[in-house]
């Protein structure tokens, strides 16, 4: 990764999990959640510095949440939480942003906002996004990697009926193939 082992380059990657197993009673401010993104393996001792807080504030501005920095994280709406977690992934100034099912737990309006936020970010860094929702990804991403035992890479412009059939069609055919039994055999077996 970036020409070195992934462990060494971990600090250049921003990561956002699919779902935060989050305790609603956990008292923590939005600011403190975002600051976690400044942690690194090397820097061990002492509190966060002023520079960390400024970076966290800038990340919050990018996702339009700067006015909620002092709020309790549990008071945010689902979409705001999602954006705060993106800010946490952004605050380490990553070159690569990894998003695991970022819209799995939010409604349509939030998904739309989220998409716009990502589109503007994609100018600054590479974004890799894992999703099961093809309509969500295909409309605005540059490339799609389809992982179904094998990995296929498609530029999104070339995704048409034919490609979709390749992606899903094979799978459906495979299932049918497995379960297809000549009816005669079946009856005979039970008879």
């Amino acid at each position, binding site marked *: 990764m970036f020409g070195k082992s992934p462990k060494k380059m971990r600090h250049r990657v921003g990561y956002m999990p699919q779902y935060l197993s989050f305790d609603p*009673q956990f008292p923590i401010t939005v600011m403190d959640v975002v600051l976690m993104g400044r942690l690194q393996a*090397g820097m061990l001792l002492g*509190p966060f510095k002023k520079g960390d807080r400024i970076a966290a504030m800038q990340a919050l501005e990018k996702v339009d949440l700067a006015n909620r920095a002092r709020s309790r994280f549990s008071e945010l709406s689902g979409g705001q939480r999602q954006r705060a977690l993106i800010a946490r992934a952004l605050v380490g100034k990553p070159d690569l942003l990894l998003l695991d099912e970022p819209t799995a737990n939010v409604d349509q309006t939030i998904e739309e906002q989220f998409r716009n936020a990502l589109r503007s970010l994609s100018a600054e860094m590479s974004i890799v996004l894992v999703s099961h929702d093809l309509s969500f990804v295909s409309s605005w991403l540059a490339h799609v990697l389809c992982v179904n035992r094998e990995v296929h890479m498609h530029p999104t412009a070339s995704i048409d009926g034919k490609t979709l059939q390749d992606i899903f069609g094979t799978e459906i055919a495979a299932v049918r193939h497995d379960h297809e039994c000549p009816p005669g055999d079946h009856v005979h077996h039970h008879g």
Partner: protein
Amino acid sequence: MASQLLEALGSPLNGFLRNALIAGLLASILFGIVGTYVVTKRITYIAGAIAHCALGGIGFALFARHELGWENVDPLHGALIAALAAALLIGTVVLSRSEREDTVIGATWATGMAIGFMFVKMVRRGGVSIESWLFGDINFVSRADLWTVAALGAAVLLLVLLFHRQFVAVCFDEEFARARGINVPFFYLLLLCMSAVTVVVLVRLVGIIMVIALLTLPAAIGSRFARGLGGMMAWATILCALFLILGLEFSLRWNIIAGPSIILVAAGSYFSILLIGKIKNRPALFTKQDRQKK
């Protein structure tokens, strides 16, 4: 209403009470801080098992002192070693994710107590009683214990000052902490060891069985009022000190044993606040910002 506690403190005969109060107030800072981590990381039961395992060390230390003639062995040191061993054992098994967590906790809990009782019952000399260790006894808190409390407290506080950020990340979101390159297993074990030390600090005063309540209840109440972990620690520290003072006051006023008196004050406050919260039908109290919006 004159305070029996203030009156008793004024009497020169009450050196032990004074020691108990000083130890309690010093330990409140520790309990507030470590209790906050324990509550938010949801390891109350692990901390409980660690506390009960301390009995194994106490039992062995009493046995060694009275039957083997090891004059320099202090039960408090035995408690500390046994609690740290239990913390490392449970922590390692939990981290390996190979066994059921609650079963391991229960097994360690019972083993520690079994070892403790076994050794205590083997002591034939000196009229040793285990009861004061189980339920606490303020007449036990000596000046030497005060120094032990202060030294252990200082060590834990230093770790908190150095690694608070890492502890917060591990408590809030282990997966993300790992992605940032934080050594999660190390900080998890360190947190358990800090809980072990903290629990031992107040074992003299409130006893092994109930110390876990004083560690977690002030923090649990604090989490309902505070907006961040720092605030939760401050709330927990103040509440812990308050419960100790009120508990000692009631203990003197109505001649109740001190440990249970302190714990009942803490538990009574906790359940009252839960109840009030339920009546108002909201999970947490609103913050200033919310009120301004309305």
